């Protein structure tokens, strides 16, 4: 009964969102039917488009997991965007530094290097928080801007492709590329990385003593400390893992999709990840599902822009509205969900 009510309330949200979408489309003077069919065809229309949903879901899952791990352990990481870029820089640099490594060696190393890249970038706000109690919210946002500028510097200096005037790195060697999984789509084996990461993070957070400590620290650091858990260690660890996962996303974008470092690599994945983490309730499996959902929303609205000329600001509107409605759900659907608060 309780779960039924819960689902009903979510259905209500879906309905409201649907109505908002129709309203916006109508405002835009477009054919609602054409737009909506464009939306769904854009998602489910072909093997390619379905694959596209997963292509975008890969970085969203990885960054989303990162943000969720942080949230669980009390590290409010708004810096996934910057960490993604740092992972991308590290991975590209490494791949270009050792162009002749065989794939079997290269890919695992890239995973480690990408993880470290993102991890280090989160570690700094992590240590500042753990040691000096400096708000990680502000520092991690500032670090996004800094990281993006570092990418700009890298692709114009150390990592610049000497053969072209464009600000981008040379192509990474064949051995560093994640293979394509489905012919004539862009779906690459980064999805396997995302899948494994989801499972590992689930196990880490919910099944291991370390994960337990991280969660405990996230809820009540003082009590955790009193029973012998090191807060410092756990904030630093969660920052490292949180940033590392975002770094993995950057690595997977380089190795699986772009094959070179270039500005604008991430269409705000790092910020969207925060929303993904929320909708996924900071639970690894939820995050994966939410990532696919948000990715589908984005892929669909892009298609809608092409088929019916709907400005794609609509996906930003809907993403914002979805989150707000979910947060307000218990109040809006008071009658339905009052029982939910009780255990």
């Amino acid at each position: 009964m309780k779960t039924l009510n819960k689902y009903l309330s979510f259905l209500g949200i879906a309905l409201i969102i649907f109505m908002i979408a129709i309203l916006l489309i109508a405002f835009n003077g477009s054919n609602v039917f054409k737009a909506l069919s464009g939306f769904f065809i854009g998602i489910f229309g072909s093997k390619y488009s379905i694959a596209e949903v997963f292509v975008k879901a890969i970085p969203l899952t990885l960054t989303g997991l990162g943000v969720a791990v942080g949230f669980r352990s009390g590290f409010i990481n708004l810096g996934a965007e910057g960490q993604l870029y740092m992972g991308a820089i590290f991975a590209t640099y490494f791949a270009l530094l050792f162009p002749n490594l065989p794939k079997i060696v290269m890919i695992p190393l890239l995973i480690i290097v990408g993880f470290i890249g993102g991890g280090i970038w989160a570690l700094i706000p992590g240590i500042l928080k753990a040691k000096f109690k400096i708000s990680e919210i502000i520092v991690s946002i500032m670090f996004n801007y800094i990281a993006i500028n570092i990418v700009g510097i890298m692709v114009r200096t150390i990592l610049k492709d000497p053969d072209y005037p464009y600000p981008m790195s040379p192509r990474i060697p064949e051995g560093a590329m994640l293979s394509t999984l489905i012919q004539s789509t862009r779906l690459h084996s980064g999805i396997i990385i995302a899948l494994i990461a989801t499972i590992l993070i689930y196990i880490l957070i919910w099944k291991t003593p370390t994960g337990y400590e991280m969660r405990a620290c996230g809820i009540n650091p003082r009590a955790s400390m009193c029973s012998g858990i090191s807060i410092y260690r756990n904030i630093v660890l969660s920052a490292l893992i949180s940033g590392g996962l975002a770094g993995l996303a950057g690595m997977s974008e380089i190795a699986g999709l772009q094959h070179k470092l270039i500005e604008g690599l991430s269409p705000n994945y790092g910020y969207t990840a925060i929303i993904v983490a929320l909708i996924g309730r900071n639970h690894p499996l939820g995050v994966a599902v939410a990532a696919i959902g948000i990715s589908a929303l984005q892929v669909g609205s892009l298609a809608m822009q092409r088929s019916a000329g709907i400005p794609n600001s609509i996906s930003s509107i809907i993403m914002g509205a979805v989150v707000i409605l979910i947060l307000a759900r218990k109040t809006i659907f008071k009658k339905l969900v009052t029982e939910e608060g009780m255990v």
Partner: protein
Amino acid sequence: MSLLVMQNIDKSFFGKSALKQVCLDVKHGEIHALLGENGAGKTTLMNILYGIYTKDNGEVFWKGESIQFDSPKDAIDNRIGMVHQHFSLVPTLTVSQNITLGLKSKGYPFSNRKKLNEEIKEISNKYGLDICPDAYVSSLSVGEQQRVEIIKLLYRNAELLILDEPTAVLTPQEIENLYIILRKLREDGHSVIIITHRIPDVISITDKITVLRDGEKIATVNTKDVDEKELSQYMIGRQLKVMKRDEIEVKECDGLDLNNISLKKDGVMSLDSISLHIAPGQIIGVAGVDGNGQKDLAEVIMGIQTHTGGTLKLCNEDISNLKVKDRKKLGMGYISDDRHCDGLIMDMDLTENFLLRAHSDKKFINKGLINEKLAKQETKKIVEKYGIKTQSIRTPIRYLSGGNQQKLILARELMGNPKAIVAFQPTRGLDIGAAEFIHEKLFECRKNGCSILLISADLEEILAVSDLIAVMYKGKFMGILKNEENIDVSRIGMMMAGSLDEYRRELA
């Protein structure tokens, strides 16, 4: 005519009934006690009166008129005041700012602080509530905070004062002072509702007593018509057991040994050369006014803070440099004075709170993963053995009453025959039944050869269970006395107040 009548009050939380048809009748100039076990509904009833909760059913008459308070402001406007169980003061504001908070005095919002301070002084002088208006609340001792709370009510002209467990954190002298004030208030025509678990006090100062059990009113009696035994019968449905401390043979060699322990914080010595030996099977009680370094002492022993001087030994092994975790592994247990902050993770369930200690125990780890099955089994065992009242072991600990929460902490910290226990205010806020249970468990440990340090501001408790009594004042031990039949309580009281003579005499 009665000042306050609460009639047939019903209240339930999430479908679980907390108050059933409760009635309460308070006259002008009366001190009325509200008694009951933890979770009986005392606070809930008062919170309804004060506008914090809304009642489901029933009626409240204030001076004969039916009223409904929707917020504390309504209650304050009707000259009802309440001091909560956990003080509600803003630590970063001054005493005076706290007292006048939310009031609109002349010139608002540019109040004349000087004038307000004078008014406050006037009240504090009248009732002997000594306080400095410009001190920050964060710098006050608990007793002083209590005074601020009371002045706050008086400043607001409260006719009815509600005090929810005002004595739980006070020293005997402070309690005595409080009672003097209450009597003075009664003389001045104020009425008081006091919630407390201290039965002797109830008998000495109140006029009437209402007893709640499981959300129902059991009885309202005139104080002069009852005695302690009857009251405990009313409260917990039985009489308290008579506890006896049997003499236990003390081995001098091992146990917990503090040698000249010091702690320097921000240039101040908060612990000053503390030496103490707790033999196995010994309970040493540390008496003292709250805030004289007891918390530091407890935390230094547990390794939550690191001492800056001296050595700490457990069974002749130097543990000075061990982390909290390792100390616990060696067999040390800690019951903190603040279970909500230090002891429990309120949003986690019973099993997870049990794991707070057990998760680092090899027994509960299987191939790097937590052995959930075993953890649940153990938690279930604990729930049965300690009689913890809970819906299930998956219930967030937040939903348990204080006594039951404390039982879980106790069970967790006493697991596996500990060698040493630091019990800091273990019965604070607990009802007599629950307190008795905790004391029983401590005795059981003592019997098993555990060294126990009991720190409490409640001298009664110290006297009831300790073998030796150490009195703490400003980070020092003023002396260590043997707890004998004819122990001089007034001497302890003087030591607690920092009488240096006593200290010197002990040293000599």
